[in-house]
Structure formats: structure tokens, C-alpha cells
């Protein structure tokens, strides 16, 4: 998939009147430009939908200073794949009432999409999805992260995510007692 458009191409598309374009150009924190279907962006991201509706999309590349190029590439990739592969009605309704609608299991392609990501890339993508208000993508990434924890003890989870154990000795003992029935034999 061609997502990383060169400068020249971006300049060319700028000449087309904004209203006629069916893509928007996004600019990562490190200055790379990406093009994404306007329809998909508006449908999958509440933030981009708001920007498109409010006319604050910049043809030269809308600055997304919080998102690095790798994460933005994944976001755009996700949007394009989504536009191509999913009948959207069900997903739209699930993303509108995010807090109450039951989570719809990831589609096969969504699963593959997050499975290939490194921990770092997954982390950045969760943050990007959160920043852009992409609730379905947030669902899918959070689901992936939670799967990485399933059935693991706190120690194992810390190892997977390289998290420092910042509890004191006393607190650990307390936690151990809280969890004794679930994780420890004695």
C-alpha cells in the first residue's frame, strides 16, 4: 500500500480544490506526509471528522504533532484497510456508544494488523488512536494488549511490558495476600 507520499505529489494534490478531494493529508511529528481517504478518516476518527467538518484540514498536511511517522503510517494503513474490507454499519454504531456497546471481536484482518506490530509500535498506535478519537482502533489495540496479559501473573505481566515493580516490600506482601487464592500455592 502506498501511504508515504512524496513532497511533490502532495504539492500537486494541493492544487485540487479542497472540497473536491476525497483524501486528506496528515503530517507526522517528524514531518512525513500521509494521505488517507477522507471518508474513512471521518468515519473512524472523531477528531479528524471534527477537523474536516470544521475546515481545519491543511492541504499541505495537517499537523499531528503528537504522532510519530511510524504510528501515523499504521493509523493510515488501518483506515485504508478498513475502507476496503469492512461493511461499516455495525462498526459505526459500536463506536458511537463506545462505553455501553459490547465490544465486537476483532476481525481476522484487524487481528493480523495488530499481531505484526512490535511492542513499541503497538504502544504508539494505542496513543495515536486515543489522540485521534479512533474508538474502533482503540478497541482493537486494547484487546491485543489485554490478550498479552491473559493468564499471566503480575510478575509475568511486568516482564512482558518491561514495567518496574514500584511497590514496597510491605505493599507486595499485602498484594500477595490479596492474590494468594488466584496465583500462589500455599
Amino acid at each position, binding site marked *: 500500500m502506498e501511504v508515504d507520499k512524496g513532497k511533490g505529489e502532495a504539492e500537486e494534490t494541493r492544487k485540487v480544490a479542497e472540497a473536491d478531494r476525497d483524501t486528506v493529508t496528515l503530517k507526522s511529528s517528524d514531518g512525513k506526509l500521509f494521505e488517507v481517504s477522507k471518508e474513512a478518516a471521518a468515519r473512524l476518527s472523531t477528531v479528524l471528522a471534527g477537523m474536516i467538518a470544521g475546515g481545519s484540514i491543511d492541504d499541505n498536511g495537517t499537523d499531528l504533532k503528537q504522532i510519530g511517522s511510524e504510528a501515523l503510517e499504521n493509523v493510515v494503513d488501518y483506515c485504508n484497510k478498513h475502507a476496503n474490507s469492512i461493511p461499516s454499519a455495525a462498526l459505526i454504531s459500536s463506536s458511537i456508544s463506545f462505553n455501553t456497546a459490547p465490544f465486537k471481536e476483532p476481525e481476522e484482518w484487524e487481528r493480523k494488523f495488530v499481531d505484526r506490530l512490535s*511492542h513499541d509500535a503497538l504502544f504508539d498506535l494505542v496513543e495515536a488512536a486515543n489522540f485521534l478519537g479512533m474508538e474502533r482502533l482503540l478497541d482493537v489495540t486494547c484487546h491485543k494488549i489485554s490478550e498479552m496479559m491473559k493468564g499471566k501473573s503480575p510478575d509475568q505481566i511486568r516482564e512482558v511490558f518491561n514495567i518496574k515493580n514500584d511497590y514496597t516490600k510491605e505493599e507486595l506482601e499485602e498484594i500477595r495476600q*490479596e492474590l494468594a487464592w488466584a496465583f500462589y500455592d500455599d
Partner: protein
Amino acid sequence: MASQEEQQPGWSNLPSDLLRLIAQRSRDAVTGLAAFRSVCRTWRAAVGPAPRLLLPRAGSASDPTLVFPLARGWSIVVDARDASCHLSHLATGAAAALPKLTNAVRDIYGHRPDAVRSWAFHRTYAAFTYSLRFAIHVPPDDSDPTAAAAGMTVMMYHLMHGRTGMLFCRPGDAAWTKVKKPNPLQHGCLRYGFFDFVYHDGKMFGMGGTNGQMAVYDAATLDVLHVVPTPPVPSKLSSKMYGRTTKMYGVAVDLEDYDYINLVSLPSKLILVMTSVKSSLPVAFNIFELRSTPDGGLTWHK
């Protein structure tokens, strides 16, 4: 990606709303969020402290209330001084009054008003109420606890009701209603206490006897609709409600293996979960589903 992120991303530093999302997905049926909140301080802060397990509590002289934790956050709280009781939803503070149990007791022992005290096992109300067992039916939509309480059915059975049957009431009732046991002549043997009882789909079910038969009542008319035959298992049923059977005819029998019974009302069906216990450890689960038979009866189906 930017170079300061080259090490490991700060999984412990994700915004707490994101952590909560992840936590909710990682919840599992047995351990809940126990592991998640034990990873580090930020993760714990995101999901809050561990919930306390609510255990049944017997009354004492200083605190004569008994708490019977039931389904979906509801408990029944009984005051052992006067056997008054109410429904309580701990999480929201919702409550609903129930009729006093004293009336229920008098209904049963009406011909001998002092009978409660005369039982050798139960010298006080506290001891008496300790053998109470409850089951509740909560309407499926319980988003508003106060409204949900109005639609509830509460069932109660006491060890000493013996062949009398169980009681039920709904919040706002003036008294508990007695549900008679099926007539032995008409429906066969179901003479002794109930193992377990449950409400499902407009009917009340009481499983009991020494043989695991189950009486089915119409919750509106209290008619006995069916007596469901014993589930197809070797007969070593024990009661989860009153502990295992260790005495038979006054002789201590230490059963090495036996089966606990739980009736579980699911939205679409009634199931029976049987936990086989051997030397105090669960060794097997069997699940039966209540199904109609061609001749209009009901039977347990494995």
C-alpha cells in the same frame, strides 16, 4: 519514531483512561482485575482498589445483623433481634424493605408460637436465622437498582421448614407467602428439605429431598406444575446450603466423595451444576439442562 522513545515505551505511564480500557479487556471471570492492579502503582490507581469479597456473616451480640450476599450486588440483611429484613444493594446504597421474617416463622409454627425457641438447635434468633437461605430473582434490566428492586422475587427456605416448603415475597409485600411442597400422594416423594431453589422464567424451582427431585411451581398461582425426576447421576447428592451430610440417622458418616448441587438460572434456560468433590477437592463438574419431554414433562439433560 522519536529517539527518546528508543528504550521501552512507558507502559506504566499510559493515561489512566487508556489503562482502564485495557484493564476492562483483560478482566477474566475468575481473577477479575487482580493481576492487573498488582503490576504497579499507576495501573492500580487506574482501576481502583480491589473489591472486597462479601461473605455471609453471622450475627453477634454487638452486631446482630446478618448479611446474605446474593446475585448481582444485592444482599439480604437480616436483623437477628427481631428478624426484620431488607434488600440492600451495596454498590449504590439502594434498599427495599421486606416483610419481617417473624411472621414467616409464625406462619410455619403458628400452632406453636414459641416453637422457634423450643428447637434445641436454635436457642436464639441469631442461631435460627443462621440457617436461613435465600435466593433472589433480579429483573434483567437492573441499571436502576431502585426500580429493579420492585421487580424482584425473593425466595427463602429454612432448614427447619422441613416438609413445609419454602417462602417467597416481593418487596412491598405485607408478609411472606408460603409455597407448599408437592403432595407426596400425587407427585411422589419429595419430603425433606430443599438443597437449592431458584426462580426462572415465571416459575420457582425447589430441588430437594434425599433424592434430588425438583418441584416446579408457577410463581403466580403457586400450583405445582411438575416434579422433575432426579438427574441421571449416582445418588450421593449433598447440600451446598447446609454443608455436607456428615450425619445420617444420627450416625456420623464421613463421606469421602459426594456431589454439590447448584441451580443456575440463565436468561434462556435453567441449568444444574453438579460439583463432584473427593477428599475435599473438586474433581469434576457436570452440567445438566432442564428440557421438556415429549409427554409434556421436564427432565434433566446432560
